[in-house]
């Protein structure tokens, strides 16, 4: 399982989001790879899910078929955990 954490530059915020997703996966006892990327590099990355800001969702929808999970606050563990749970449920 591979989750992509996406922000505008792929250097700051997406790294923070990646850490929050990893923490959420740990707390849910789920194994998975989390990789961070900038918005322009998304297409070259194969992933099972993309976590990103609601501002990017519409743009990405047009470009990729990967399921998108919007996250408003990248450091909000409860919000991220909720979206991870939704993703896991969608996988079933």
């Amino acid at each position, binding site marked *: 399982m591979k989750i992509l954490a996406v*922000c*505008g*530059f*792929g*250097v*700051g*915020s997406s*790294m*923070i989001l*990646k*850490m*929050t997703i990893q*923490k959420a996966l740990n707390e849910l006892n789920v194994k998975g790879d989390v990789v961070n990327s*900038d*918005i322009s590099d998304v297409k070259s990355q194969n992933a099972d899910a993309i976590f990103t*800001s*609601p*501002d*990017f969702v519409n743009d990405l929808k047009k470009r990729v078929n990967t399921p998108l999970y919007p996250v*408003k*606050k*990248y*450091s*909000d*563990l409860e919000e991220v955990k909720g979206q991870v749970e939704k993703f896991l449920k969608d996988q079933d």
Partner: protein
Amino acid sequence: MPHIKKKHMQIVDSSESYEDAIALAAKPLLDDDYITEDYIDQMLESIEKFGTYIVLADEFALPHARPSEAVKKTGMSLLVVKNGVDLKNNDVKLFIVLAAKDSTTHTEVLQSLASFLMEKQNIKDVINAERVDDIETILEKRLK
């Protein structure tokens, strides 16, 4: 690990706008030649271009732009705005400016910052600190 230096921390009561707050937050890095004026413009432009996801948690924002020639040295600075300032419908009281010279050297710092930010109480404690010395103590203890 290159943490936030005490001389790069500031506490103010209020700020006119988020643009002012970000410029003020970045000023210590500008004065110490970590960044040029361009970097401040780039941080503000990125909010226009990409939106407000730099508001990573309630009351917290991480203004930054992509690594560029406008960054001479990787560093971070911190500003507390006691009364908060509106960043496009988000009330922000704590700003940490991230200036990264390249996309790898600051990874370790960001990882520890990520863990720090996930504990909401940490953000509250920094915002409620009366002096920068207290902020330094909080970060020394909890930003690992």
